[in-house]
């Protein structure tokens, strides 16, 4: 039997993060292909009551780390916990979601174990008993196939890419994993979390994204983008031109020096389609472009488009969506 597959399951405010469930679901598939067991490490504070949420995804075993010190992200405590779990079960493959926590924790834990890591992967295969992954590089302008040597191997998985597949519900063995980390030794401490965008979704987590570009002309017009995003239950994004002009904060920026997103639906409004922006959104499942200029490069990769004035079209579009969803 091959070495076990370990999936790190992240929680925030006691809630399990959906991207971690995606990673667990992919872990089930990988473990089956490797002929090995699937182990979930559920870490956080107040996670014990949430553990049954993992059962439908089919883990054979769950390591439960429930500690106040894990309530907020502490890089050293988390890395020490994950490395301890890998050693305990002698895991050969470690999967994490490529969330902001996963992308920070993965490399630190991998360094503890002299392990290789492939970040932000969008495909995972097992070929002849070996893991082979694909990851977007040059911000999605190319796709690299990565092979590993040594054990364990770490892989972080891009959120929103891997489907949630229900497995046969298991009754996994649950084992507590104590955090062997002295809080006095924590040299960096998370002291609080400041919600920076209120109740809005982050552009990297949303399954629908509506973005505005240069044609928004100023900060006030982003209300049109926000209205449509809200009607669709999605998040608001922006091009670099809009961010550099100071109309909207950089956390909304999609593209090579912003966030790379792969939502189910991406609506680009008044964005001509500079290569840097296209790189950040071209792996979206469905792309819609709204632009006055029929020659705008964004139309070359859009699945649907409207040539026209976004100031006329967006309010109508929001109205139609609200009608459809019974919001008006």
């Amino acid at each position, binding site marked *: 039997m091959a070495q076990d597959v370990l999936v790190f399951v992240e929680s925030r405010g006691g809630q399990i993060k959906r991207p971690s469930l995606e990673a667990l679901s992919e872990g089930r598939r990988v473990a089956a292909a490797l002929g090995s067991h699937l182990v979930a490490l559920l870490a956080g504070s107040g996670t014990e009551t949430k553990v049954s949420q993992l059962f439908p995804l089919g883990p054979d075993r769950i390591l439960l780390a429930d500690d106040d010190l894990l309530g907020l*992200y502490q*890089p050293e405590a988390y890395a020490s916990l994950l490395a301890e779990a890998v050693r305990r079960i002698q895991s050969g493959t470690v999967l994490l979601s490529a969330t*902001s*926590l996963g*992308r*920070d924790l993965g*490399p*630190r834990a*991998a*360094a503890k174990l002299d392990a*290789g*890591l492939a*970040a932000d992967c969008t495909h995972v295969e097992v070929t002849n008993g070996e893991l*082979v992954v694909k*990851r977007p*590089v*040059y911000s*999605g*302008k*190319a796709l*690299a*196939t990565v*092979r590993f*040597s040594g054990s364990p191997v770490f892989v972080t998985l891009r959120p929103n890419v891997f489907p949630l597949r229900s497995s046969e519900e298991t009754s996994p063995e649950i084992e507590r994993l104590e955090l062997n980390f002295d809080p006095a030794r924590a*040299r*960096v*401490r*998370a002291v*609080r*979390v*400041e919600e*920076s965008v209120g109740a809005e*979704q982050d552009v990297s987590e949303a399954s*629908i994204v509506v973005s505005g570009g240069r044609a928004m002309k100023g900060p006030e017009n982003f209300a049109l983008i926000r209205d449509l995003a809200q009607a*669709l239950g999605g998040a608001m994004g922006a091009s670099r031109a809009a961010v550099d002009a100071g109309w909207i904060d*950089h956390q909304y920026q999609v593209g*090579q*020096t912003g966030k*790379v997103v792969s939502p189910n*639906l991406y609506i680009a409004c008044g964005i001509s389609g500079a*290569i840097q922006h296209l790189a950040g959104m*071209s792996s979206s*499942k469905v*792309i*819609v472009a709204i632009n006055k200029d*029929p020659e705008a490069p964004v*139309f070359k*990769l859009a*699945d*649907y*488009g*409207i*040539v*026209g*004035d976004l100031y*006329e*079209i967006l309010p*109508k*579009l929001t*109205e139609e969506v609200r009608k459809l969803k019974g919001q008006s």
Partner: protein
Amino acid sequence: MRIAVCIKQVPDTETKVRIAADGRSLDETGVTFVVSPYDEIAVEEGLRIKEKRGGEVVAFSVGDERVSTSLRTVLALGADRAVHLKDPAFENSDALGLSRILAAALKPEAFDLILFGKQAVGTDRGQLGPRVAELLDLPHVGVVVRLALEGDRFTAHREVEGAQEVMEGGLPVVLTAQKGLNEPRYASLKGILAAKKKEIKVLTIAELGLNPSMVGSAGARTRWEKLELPPARTAGKILKGMDPGEAARELVRLLREEAKVI
């Protein structure tokens, strides 16, 4: 304050990617190489802290001869000196190998602050900050958008999904810079002239005391087997010359009935 900034030379973000004949790397013909944009933010932060508190900013980079132009750029911005980690044995190092090389070079200098960009544009790995911190047994904070130093304590705001985590700690520390932390400066003519006289020290594998099996292709735990262009997208249905209300209705219908995404 003794400040180190680790930079990487990368293809300019405007680069149109073509695949090289080996099928697993970038065709570098005609590509312009620049300091990775997030590393520029790290450099700027280092310079601002030095300007306020005095001390020294030292730039580090791993790579072949071409990398010296990027180190010269950072010297022109105001770094005091640079260390170029250059050896044929370093070629094809993965993140593990690069972190070993950098850690070996950084360790003897005992910096108060080690800065990285949050990731290099291109390989988009984002691993070196946390890895180097672990190898040097230092704490780290990744993806920093705000930083305040007071004495030997710091408060850093780290960007996460829809929020910021506020982290506190003491120096020494490794930080990785995210857009928003500052607005990087341009080099002045005076800076460019001054940079010509500044030192770029070259360190090889022997001088770093590393074993060849730990770095380069030999030490790599990950390797690119293939590089390909993503599947091309083709233009779909474009609605032209329609009344805005009519176009909006038709688009919603298509998204609902054909694409099934809303």
